[in-house]
């Protein structure tokens, strides 16, 4: 029995990148469609809801401009998250310099999280949302990457510049903190 390749199987990220390098612009569009929603969720969760479009666009422009540096050691989406994270940090540093604000926390997304309150109608969901708000920036980052994005601890470590062990600890500490908040 002849085995043929599934004609409708989605090409891998690596294959789409290869095609794009060969001049196939549609492959870039397919990569954007595949990963932009997740990158947008990541950017929004990081507190940049007002500039999600801009950051997501910059992320993809940077990524494709530096595609030759993507070695494939990590997943393409993980690499995109890393770029987005750097862009967000650069924006915050730039804003701090222009506003002359001193020592702002890396996870300074207080106003963004408060704004989300108005969007959540379900009381139980609202409590979970506020529980996430109560986490430290690092715990919130790791927790949301693990739960929202379903990333492995290794991928989280790559994005956050941490280790798998530290990511695991942050996740479990965050889960414990959320449960204690909800139990109050």
């Amino acid at each position, binding site marked *: 029995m002849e085995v043929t390749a599934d004609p409708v199987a989605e090409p891998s990220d690596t294959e789409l990148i290869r095609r794009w390098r060969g001049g196939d612009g549609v492959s870039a569009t397919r990569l954007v469609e595949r990963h932009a929603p997740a990158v947008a969720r990541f950017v929004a969760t990081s507190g940049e809801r007002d500039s999600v479009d801009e950051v997501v666009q910059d992320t993809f422009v940077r990524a494709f401009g530096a595609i030759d540096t993507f070695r494939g050691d990590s997943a393409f989406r993980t690499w995109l998250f890393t770029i987005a994270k750097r862009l967000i940090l650069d924006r915050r540093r730039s804003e701090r310099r222009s506003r002359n604000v001193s020592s702002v926390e890396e996870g300074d997304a207080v106003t963004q999280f408060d704004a989300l309150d108005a969007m959540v109608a379900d009381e139980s969901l609202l409590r979970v949302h506020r529980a996430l708000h109560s986490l430290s920036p690092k715990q919130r980052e790791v927790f949301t990457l693990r739960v*929202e994005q379903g990333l492995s601890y290794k991928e989280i470590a790559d994005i956050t510049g941490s280790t798998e062990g530290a990511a695991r600890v942050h996740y479990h500490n965050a889960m414990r903190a959320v*449960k204690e908040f909800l139990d109050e």
Partner: protein
Amino acid sequence: MNDCQNVAMREALPELVHGALPEAERTRVLAHVSGCEACSGELAIVRAVVTLATAPSIDMATISAAIPPYASSIRHRPFYVAHLRLAAALLLGAVGVSALVVEHHSTGTSMAVQTTGVALVGTSDLSDAHLEQLIQSMGQLEAVPSAEPEPVTPVVFEGDAS
């Protein structure tokens, strides 16, 4: 609420919600959750967080249009530099810098060979500037004569009529 002691089960909950578990593993985790209050509570939290994670609407067409066409970031050397390197390699190989000193002795001929070794340098290790400098300096080299040849004493063969 106390944490479940089965860490593997707790760690599988995000994958369960994202549908990333193999069928057999999914069945195992669901069976555990149904009998574990702690994991059931954690699963509810994971599902709530995923529900909260609404993706903001973004304009994908604009993002795609902003992506520049592919341009290799590998710096290609100018055409002539590649040929310059090849010429340098051939030149170094051909020259070798050897000086032959021929000594003619009455009992025979022997050749004393003096060689001046030149380390053959891999030209790929040289920068463009160093390579051009090397080519120029080699062009300025003059053929250094070997030691002045010893006068040759003609050998006369007896019986030679001419």
